[in-house]
């Protein structure tokens, strides 16, 4: 099946199976859930970035007509957090707030307006504490600590790994390049504001409908936060109106409405305002980076050393994983014989950061790809040729023990070079116009779940019956990316039926087998493989029944176009429904399950659990810019992008993911930033969001979006369903560095940080005019107390995947912190 090359469904451009619901307004998002007797919730959020909550008086709010319930921190004694290692949040802060926006109280009332007005009646006395606004301040301010856990002072997390002696390799290199880069934070800004509805059913059990990408994780974390048996909690992930990583945490409001529904015995809804969505954030970490790379004079990399410093905001969230991701995937694009990686995440008094499209990897990828551009120039090499010479090999191991399977990166580079007419443009366009090239790679699913277990990461259940209907159940979650379409397409392909005849029931912890959710680009590969297994099991039963009837062998039965037929005499056939009837007669009620666990990763050292994936996707991108020297305005005129997809399941959706990634990447490159300013001291130096609105948080509109030319490289990966890799995140990665490299080609200035805004362009041009280094970017990297690294020899230096300066471990996966 997986080696087949001719398909009836896979690879054909099609209307997605949920397309009709989306264009008729029938897709039911969380805020569209309206239930009888439903009441409404609003949260009171801290105006202080760091303060002790001395007292809360809710009596006036409680007395307000129409108010049903007021909750405070004392109603939520249990801490929570999405990762088992960071249980540092409270649904409502009982005694300390850590960022402007940290919730301290909740009102539930007959309508939103009443709840909103009652918030004003709650009196909270705060005592301000010293605040931390950025990582340098965090390193210099060990007291007061934001949290009692972590490495030391206000350092949440430190990590250090060395794969081969990097200092030695640097010394032996012909050239050593050292650069410091900064990647500003930005946020998901899904158009759907987060909403949740909680209700108690007839049996007294809780149901939560929510805008979440990860119903299984929410199920676990919510049951713990409320101290309820998980079997009495049902989480339904409504289709998300965009996720991009921002709906992956358990959020305060989800716990609050659940508790309120249990207390009131009636449905409780909350929908966040747009301003609250900005403050809740969990988006891209601001990261300061230092990169040292050794190269030979003929353009081979000898080693790389990446150091990162992450501004984590006020809580842990997924931050431990984010910290790993600022280093671990640097090795999968190019041959890097030795690699060292130090990372540090600090707490600051700002909204917590977390996963956003590309989770932790766009920042170091930006640094790496801009530095490669500088290296190519210094060595007198064409940036495309230089990269083609160092592309990682298929079926190889990296220095940090990641297993690369298929890699279509070279083909991607060749495609964008050809389609963009690179050779005629690079360093040849008139002053003010330029082209830039960059590449990227991403996971097709994190190798490990966020909590340690040996169970499948995706489960699929299929039901067929005599009516001919096929229903597929899976915990995967539709966030707009097309996960239902992947599921239906795969089941339809295996069973030889029309994808529109498959009914998808997804993202409901009471009805669907566990799937870990829509994050880390895992759905196509993991859900897809589980779906193939379930569908093949049922197909085998049907084939046996049909073969008995046709007096042949099951392996001679074919499935296509709603027919079950003799492979060597396709005229002998029956309808799919007739075949199901035969199978139901022979085997009884028909059902099958499939499950998927990723292959075991070869690394054995502590921390080797982050980075492995069943496959990696690759992308190359060329951006053309025009830069106005007077205003500093950057106009991106066209983008060429090629993505190594393995195989496209539905090319319409694939193209949409790629173009959407380019769009979001251009936003990050040119304008999007989640930035804060201090209010005056009398307002406790509050760190408030500069631009918490969709008007001021600039994103590309239709008028700003350039034409995108998309190409696919289809080299099926054996670990992937029909060979199909991810496409939701990888194509974002090369966009930002390609823009920076194109700006350099256009006007000869280096902007070593994003966003690349007109003021920075003008500042760099001014430096250039004065004969100074025409560069804008961070000047230095601070002293970070990185620990002595865990040392692991690369595979080609006699390593066995274990650390050489730590006790041997049987399985790295057992102790890995998180994916």
């Amino acid at each position: 099946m997986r080696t087949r090359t001719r398909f009836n469904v896979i690879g054909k451009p099609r209307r997605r199976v949920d397309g009709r619901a989306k264009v008729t307004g029938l897709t039911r998002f969380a805020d569209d859930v309206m239930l009888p007797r439903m009441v409404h919730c609003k949260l009171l959020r801290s105006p202080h970035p760091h303060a002790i909550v001395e007292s809360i008086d809710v009596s006036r709010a409680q007395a307000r007509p129409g108010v049903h319930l007021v909750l405070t921190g004392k109603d939520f004694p249990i801490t929570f957090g999405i990762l088992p290692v960071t249980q540092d949040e409270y649904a409502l802060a009982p005694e300390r707030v850590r960022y402007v926006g940290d919730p301290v109280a909740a009102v539930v009332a007959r309508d939103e307006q009443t709840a909103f007005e009652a918030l004003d009646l709650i009196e909270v006395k705060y005592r301000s504490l010293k605040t931390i606004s950025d990582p340098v301040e965090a390193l210099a301010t060990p007291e007061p600590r934001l949290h009692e856990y972590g490495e030391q002072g206000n350092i949440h997390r430190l990590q250090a790994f060395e794969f081969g002696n990097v200092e030695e390799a640097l010394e032996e290199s012909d050239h050593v390049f050292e650069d410091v880069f900064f990647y500003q934070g930005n946020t998901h800004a899904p158009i759907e504001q987060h909403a949740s509805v909680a209700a108690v059913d007839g049996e007294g059990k809780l149901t939560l409908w929510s805008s979440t990408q990860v119903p299984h994780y929410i199920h676990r974390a919510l049951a713990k936060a409320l101290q309820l048996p998980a079997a009495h909690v049902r989480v339904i992930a409504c289709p998300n109106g965009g996720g991009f990583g921002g709906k992956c945490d358990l959020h305060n409001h989800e716990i609050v409405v659940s508790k309120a529904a249990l207390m009131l015995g009636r449905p409780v809804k909350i929908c966040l305002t747009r301003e609250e969505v900005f403050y809740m954030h969990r988006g891209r970490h601001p990261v300061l980076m230092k990169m040292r790379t050794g190269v030979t004079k003929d353009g081979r990399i000898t080693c790389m050393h990446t150091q990162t410093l992450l501004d984590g905001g006020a809580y842990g969230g997924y931050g431990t994983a984010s910290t790993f991701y600022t280093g671990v995937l640097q090795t999968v694009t190019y041959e890097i014989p030795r690699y060292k990686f130090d990372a540090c995440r600090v707490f600051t008094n700002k909204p917590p950061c977390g996963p956003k499209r590309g989770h932790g990897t766009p920042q170091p990828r930006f640094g790496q790809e801009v530095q490669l551009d500088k290296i190519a120039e210094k060595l007198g090499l064409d940036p495309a040729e230089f990269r083609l010479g160092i592309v990682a090999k298929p079926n190889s191991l990296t220095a940090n023990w990641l297993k690369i399977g298929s890699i279509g990166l070279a083909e991607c580079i060749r495609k964008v070079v050809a389609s963009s007419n690179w050779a005629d443009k690079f360093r040849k366009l008139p002053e003010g116009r330029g082209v830039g090239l960059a590449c990227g790679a991403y996971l097709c699913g994190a190798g490990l779940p966020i909590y340690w277990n040996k169970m499948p990461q995706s489960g699929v259940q299929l039901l067929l019956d005599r009516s001919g209907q096929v229903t597929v159940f899976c915990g995967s979650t539709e966030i707009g990316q097309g996960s239902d379409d992947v599921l239906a397409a795969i089941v339809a392909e295996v069973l030889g039926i029309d994808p529109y005849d498959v009914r998808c029931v997804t993202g409901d912890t009471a009805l669907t087998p566990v799937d870990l959710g829509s994050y880390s680009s895992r759905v196509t590969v993991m859900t897809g493989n589980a779906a193939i297994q379930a569908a093949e099991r049922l197909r085998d039963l049907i084939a046996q029944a049909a073969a008995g009837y046709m007096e042949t062998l099951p392996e001679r039965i074919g499935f296509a176009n709603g027919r079950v037929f003799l492979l060597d005499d396709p005229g002998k056939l029956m309808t799919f429904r007739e075949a199901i009837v035969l199978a139901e007669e022979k085997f009884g009620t028909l059902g099958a399950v499939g499950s998927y666990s990723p292959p075991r990763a070869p690394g054995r050292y502590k921390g080797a659990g982050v980075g492995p994936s069943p496959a990696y996707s690759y992308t190359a991108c060329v951006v053309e810019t025009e830069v106005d020297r007077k205003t500093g305005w950057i106009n991106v005129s066209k983008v060429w992008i090629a993505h190594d997809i393995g195989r496209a399941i539905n090319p319409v959706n694939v193209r949409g993911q790629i173009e959407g990634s380019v769009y979001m990447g251009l936003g990050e490159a040119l304008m999007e930033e989640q930035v804060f300013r201090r209010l005056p001291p009398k307002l406790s130096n509050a760190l408030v969001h500069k631009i918490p609105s969709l008007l001021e948080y600039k994103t590309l509109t239709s008028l700003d979006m350039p034409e995108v030319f998309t190409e696919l490289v289809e080299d099926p990966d054996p670990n992937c369903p029909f060979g199909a890799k991810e496409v939701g995140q990888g194509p974002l990665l090369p966009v930002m560095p390609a823009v920076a490299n194109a700006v350099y080609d256009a006007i000869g200035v280096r902007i070593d940080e994003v966003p690349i805004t007109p003021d920075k362009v003008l500042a760099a041009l001014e430096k250039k005019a004065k004969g100074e280094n025409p560069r804008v970017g961070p000047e230095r990297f601070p002293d970070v107390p990185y620990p002595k690294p865990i040392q692991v020899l690369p595979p080609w230096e006699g390593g066995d995947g274990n650390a050489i300066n730590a006790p041997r471990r049987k399985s790295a996966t057992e102790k890995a912190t998180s994916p």
Partner: protein
Amino acid sequence: MKTAAPTNVHLSLRVNGEAQEVSFAPYKTLLEVLREDMNLTGTKHGCELGECGACAVLVDGVPVLSCLAIARDCEGQEIETVEGLASGAKLHPLQAAFADLGGAQCGYCTPGILMTAKALLEEDPNPSRERIKEAISGNLCRCTGYQQIYESIEEAARRMRETG
């Protein structure tokens, strides 16, 4: 302290060609009344400040941000929402093209863009790419990068011209 909610207004709104009696607080926006009092949840919201375009509906044929329109002011006007776009089971050409060509990914901004595009095509049955970009520049989409939206509108326009 503010007083309790003011007395509801009671009036008839014409939505998708049907008049409906509805009673609601006088301060409510058209968006709120459509969604909360008439159960027409096809119209979405992304900011409730007139910034994102998700709530666009047609009022007398003109795209209006329903989060900024006061519902009581819409009495006597012809309001069109995404629920009224299809003819029975038959999708409007815009709906069909958006579904076929990737114009809708998460689908959340889609109703607002469909209504905006409907107004555009009624004014200009054969709009240029530039005209389309301009028409939907007030509708933010975080998923698509807009290109498949342009193509969907162009394809719908083509189908509509062919069928007259």
